[in-house]
């Protein structure tokens, strides 16, 4: 590989990692505060639709990003109402959210594009640094900058201590004055906003249009990334880069060598998932989730 090839590979990896970083950062905070949100996939998808529709209609990718954020926020609000407000099982609510987002985005997109015949083409995010094969958008850069911020917030501030205590022993946190459900609601909404940004990064950062179920399991990979990264923002970043790198490499190998190697393409498409599973199997025994993960809290 030449220097230029390495650079473009790195750029592409970071760009592909951005949606995963947004979603897994949100989930790190969620799980740390005691909420397991399986609905990441749905939240990402809502972000994709919001970003594409508004960017295409207004011609402004910036407004598209804002719309993606808002769409993710709305989806997370539904999650918060049922999982926190009504104390329903978080895995069930998250699974339902995925159904809802998949159906809703499919129905609305097809409805808004005359039966899917007039695909919306959105303007892609402009490059902030570099150009061509090495272009990095502001949204990708923001994802990278959020990681140290999140790490600091979670481990170096009083807020972070309260947040983590809430996910480990909510009763103790409540006794110390934390408003458990308010904190959890706030974090859930923030996760929605982050996933909305992630959806925008996918839909108008990497591509320029919407297709049904276009997230292709990225939300689930983000869940695995959180475990693999041991519930830390830094760990999540590394894991996200690893999986995005595998994804990019997979696409390259498929485009370049698969005929000469005689390896059918499904094998390549399975690589990220197999890798995630192997990674979990290897890390497995050492991982320890927050103690109160998934347990609803009733304000006393």
């Amino acid at each position, binding site marked *: 590989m030449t220097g230029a090839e390495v650079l473009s590979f790195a750029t592409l990896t970071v760009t592909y990692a951005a949606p995963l970083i947004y979603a897994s950062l949100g989930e790190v905070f969620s799980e740390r505060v005691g909420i397991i949100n399986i609905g990441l996939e749905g939240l990402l998808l809502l972000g994709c639709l919001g970003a594409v529709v508004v960017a295409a209609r207004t011609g402004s990718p910036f407004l598209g990003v804002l719309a993606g954020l808002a769409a993710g926020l709305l989806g997370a609000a539904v999650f918060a109402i049922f999982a926190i407000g009504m104390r329903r099982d978080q895995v069930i609510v998250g699974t*339902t959210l995925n159904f809802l987002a998949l159906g*809703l985005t499919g129905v609305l997109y097809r409805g808004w594009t005359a039966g899917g015949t007039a695909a919306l083409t959105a303007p892609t995010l402009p490059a902030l640094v570099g150009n061509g094969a090495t272009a990095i958008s502001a949204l990708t850069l923001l994802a990278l900058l959020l990681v140290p911020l999140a790490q600091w917030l979670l481990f170096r501030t009083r807020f972070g201590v309260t947040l983590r205590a809430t996910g480990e022993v909510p009763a103790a946190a409540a006794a110390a004055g934390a408003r458990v459900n308010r904190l959890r609601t706030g974090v859930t909404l923030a996760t929605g906003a982050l996933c909305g940004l992630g959806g925008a990064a996918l839909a108008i950062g990497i591509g320029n249009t919407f297709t049904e179920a276009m997230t292709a399991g990225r939300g689930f990979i983000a869940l695995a990334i959180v475990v693999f990264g041991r519930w830390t923002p830094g760990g999540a970043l590394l894991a996200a880069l690893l999986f995005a790198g595998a994804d990019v490499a997979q696409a390259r190998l498929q485009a370049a060598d698969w005929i000469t190697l005689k390896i059918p393409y499904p094998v390549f*498409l399975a690589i990220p998932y197999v890798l995630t599973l192997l990674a979990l199997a290897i890390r497995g025994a050492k*991982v320890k989730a927050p103690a109160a993960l998934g347990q609803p809290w009733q304000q006393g």
Partner: protein
Amino acid sequence: MNRIGPVLRHVPGLLLWIGGGLCVIALIIRLAGASPLAVADALWVGAFGSKYNVADTCIQAVPLLLTGLGVAIAFRSQVFNIGAEGQLLVGAMAATCVGTSALPAPILLPLALISGAVAGAGWSAIAACLRLWRGVPEVLSTLLLNFIAIQLLAFMVRGPLQEARGDYPQSDAIRIGARLALLVPQTRLHGGVILAIVLAVTVWFYLRFTAGGFALRVVGAGAPAAEAAGIRVAPTLWKAFLLSGALSGLAGAVQLCGVIYRLSDGFSPGYGYTAIAVALLAGSAPLGVIISAFFFGAITAGGASIQQRVPGVSSVVVQVLQAVALLALLGWGWARENRFLQRRTTPDSTRAEDV
């Protein structure tokens, strides 16, 4: 009367939640620029419009019933197996191997179905190993295994299982002897529907009246309680994973031997995912799964007709229906609990202790 009275009291509340859900769905369809009534009409015609449509509803219900049962068994023992889709696909692959083989006819069909169940259980066993030996949550592993199974299927129909002619990415059709009998002339309704209902009753009996089923339920109620009762948790969890995977694998085999006959990429339109909704709607009760499977079968059969009859409305509207039905159920459950709490004058003792 004692038991029916309280149930009846909740009916108005349930109707309210269902009504609310319908309003939400209507609003979403309006937002997409279509008429909710036209969608409802197309749904009805697609599900119950003719003998053929009713048969179609039943055909759709069969894989949902079997996978729904699998998910329900897992949920009852607090195993969040959401990998029914992958287990179903692997089951279909195994059944294709057997169904296209040169084995003698009398054992061909039973062997195809059994191999499907075994393959499904094997696929689920991967998640069981990861959970029990490595502490990996099955919510993650089963989901990832779904994606891997989809690619495995794509590989199989382009490689080892591809049709002899080699034109398309699909398998050869399974032999006549491997096909389930058709029940009603001029429809595609097959014997799998009877098998599925019989299995649902069997699972109900197993969970309710046998020691093994009791162990599953106690483990589901909480591992410490099970240990206190002398039930060994790990073997019980293994059983939950394997039974659940076997039922989903069988669903794939039945779908192949009863309806599709040959394997290709689009083999399952997401039966294994809908199965989660089926199990949840039934509260993971095996007999309830029968009803909820037919309900979702009707919606799925109707969904196809929506896309044909109402221009501009995607068949994924079915997913919205599923999600809103589940949300209404969750909300109703919350409302019931809340009313219950309000009636009680003493504070909840366990919670008081926590605080």
